[in-house]
């Protein structure tokens, strides 16, 4: 998990006016040639800002995403599920650690990113503002949200910022196990007792609308991000990712006898998936803090930060100086 649907704002191109045109041209030529940008290379401030923002959002999504699933570790049914879910959520926290390090190479500290997360200034994947009231909900996340994240991360792994790409390669390798775990757990419910089948269908019905918004708003209403595509910060449009996800996973959902709560969902003659347009107004509301679980998620994170502050104070010796991590 859990990255995906990074939220980009419309880029203000006038920020580029202050950049040296020669250096900018050389920078763009390097990206064009498929070279990776490394932490100490020259880069426009706008690039630095956008890449930090993207990696930071991804890192936040990992640790916030650990909460709705993590709450099921202590309740997971049986040794096999308990150990697998625990290992999976641990992986996600490990991804956060990798990603914060990748973002730190660009000059923003982990502490500052944490502060921006709990103050609400930084965003994370919107889907984690929805609740996981049953075990089945946690399995839907493990399967389909991780699946969506893989679609997004495989694309981003071909991006231009070296440390992020390298982190994503390691992350994707672990994600493929998560996907297997999630699929297995869903299949057991979908082919199990009446009660289990009902549980998983209800969870899927609850999660489908948020899943459809996972990759962000439709291209036609998205902020213009051409320059981010040219700089290989954003590697595919929201709709491209969504189409790829639907193409890979809708048949798999149907195959195990589950239904999806969208009567308009179908693949047309041109091979394009048609669906009911997600409620982008609700999406905006949730992003802005008004979803069912925004407050709870941030409160848990804030409490963890506050309760752990003494440990960080104790580990930080007076002679310690800040060193950017190697990436």
């Amino acid at each position, binding site marked *: 998990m859990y990255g995906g649907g990074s939220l980009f704002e419309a880029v203000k191109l006038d920020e580029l006016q202050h950049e040296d045109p020669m250096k900018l041209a050389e920078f763009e030529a390097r990206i064009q040639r498929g070279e990776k940008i490394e932490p100490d290379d020259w880069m426009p401030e706008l690039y630095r800002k956008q890449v930090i923002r993207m990696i930071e959002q991804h890192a936040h999504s990992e640790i916030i995403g650990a909460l709705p699933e*993590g709450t099921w570790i202590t*309740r997971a049914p049986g*040794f096999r599920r*308990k150990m697998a879910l625990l290992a999976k959520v*641990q992986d996600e926290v490990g991804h956060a650690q990798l990603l914060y390090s990748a973002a730190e190479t660009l000059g923003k500290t982990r502490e500052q990113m944490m502060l921006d997360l709990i103050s609400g200034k930084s965003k994370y994947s919107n889907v984690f503002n929805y609740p996981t009231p049953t075990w089945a909900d946690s399995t839907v996340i493990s399967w389909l949200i991780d699946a969506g994240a893989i679609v997004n991360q495989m694309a981003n792994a071909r991006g231009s910022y070296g440390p992020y790409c390298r982190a994503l390669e390691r992350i994707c390798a672990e994600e493929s196990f998560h996907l297997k775990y999630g699929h297995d757990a869903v299949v057991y419910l979908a082919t199990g007792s009446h009660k289990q089948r009902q549980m998983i269908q209800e969870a899927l019905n609850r999660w489908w609308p948020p899943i459809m918004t996972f990759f962000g708003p439709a291209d036609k209403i998205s902020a213009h991000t051409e320059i981010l595509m040219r700089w290989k910060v954003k590697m595919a449009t929201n709709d491209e990712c969504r189409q790829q996800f639907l193409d890979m996973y809708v048949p798999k959902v149907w195959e195990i006898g589950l239904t999806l709560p969208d009567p308009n969902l179908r693949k047309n003659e041109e091979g394009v998936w048609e669906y009911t347009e997600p409620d982008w107004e609700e999406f905006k509301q949730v992003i802005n803090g008004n979803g069912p679980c925004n407050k709870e998620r941030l409160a848990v994170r804030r409490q963890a930060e506050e309760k752990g502050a003494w*440990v960080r104070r104790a580990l930080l010796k007076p002679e310690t100086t800040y060193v950017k991590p190697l990436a």
Partner: protein
Amino acid sequence: MNEQAIKELLYTLADNQLVLGHRNSEWTGIGPILEEDIAFSSMAQDKLGHSLAFYALLYELGESDPDTLAFMRNPSQFHCCQLVELPIGEYDFSLIRHFLYDHAEAIRFEYLTQAGYEPLAKVATKLRGELKYHLLHANTMVKQLGNATAESINRLQQSLNDAFPYALGMFESSPYEAELASAGIFPLESQIQTQWLENIRKVLAQTQLQLPDLESVMPVFGGRRGVHSEYLQPLLDEMAEVYNLDPNTEW
């Protein structure tokens, strides 16, 4: 050899690992730093894995399968010490508990590798490597935080005072221990306790923490014979919440 004696030992080992593993897993997602979040999750996985291995030996001896043993018993059927049942509290308590517990566990595993009961010796030999990392982690963090700020030293000291009577409860004797010792399967608890005190004293001597006076502390016993704190029942209820929806199906 009395099979009941072996079983009682296996239940004690397994239940301790299961319950502490469960507690440690509660840190996943909320640790004081990401690195500790990950460390506690990782140790929790190891503990759960150990408990599974011990329950599997019980299954071979004719007891129920591991899931039934872990998810379907009442508190009075559990043999774990009360130390592992206590809530995670704040990080200082969880760290100190981990330190006290794993020093004892490491000694137990060393003896188990020599156990005159081969299936158990095999399992212990396979798993003891993991204990080395748990100890390394506990010692590193206790030494760092036990020498850092007045705040961290005070917190660790307070937790050490609170946890110590429960930690002594880890060495509760069983009606079978003389028999196990004479059969060369497992030593007396008092012998493990003596070694444990020596080992933790060595580490604590490198910190500004003081071990409470042994004479003035009353050990909290009972767990091994099914007498538990108020915290075990809610823990087991939570653990079985989903499993109990339908114990006869696969999840």
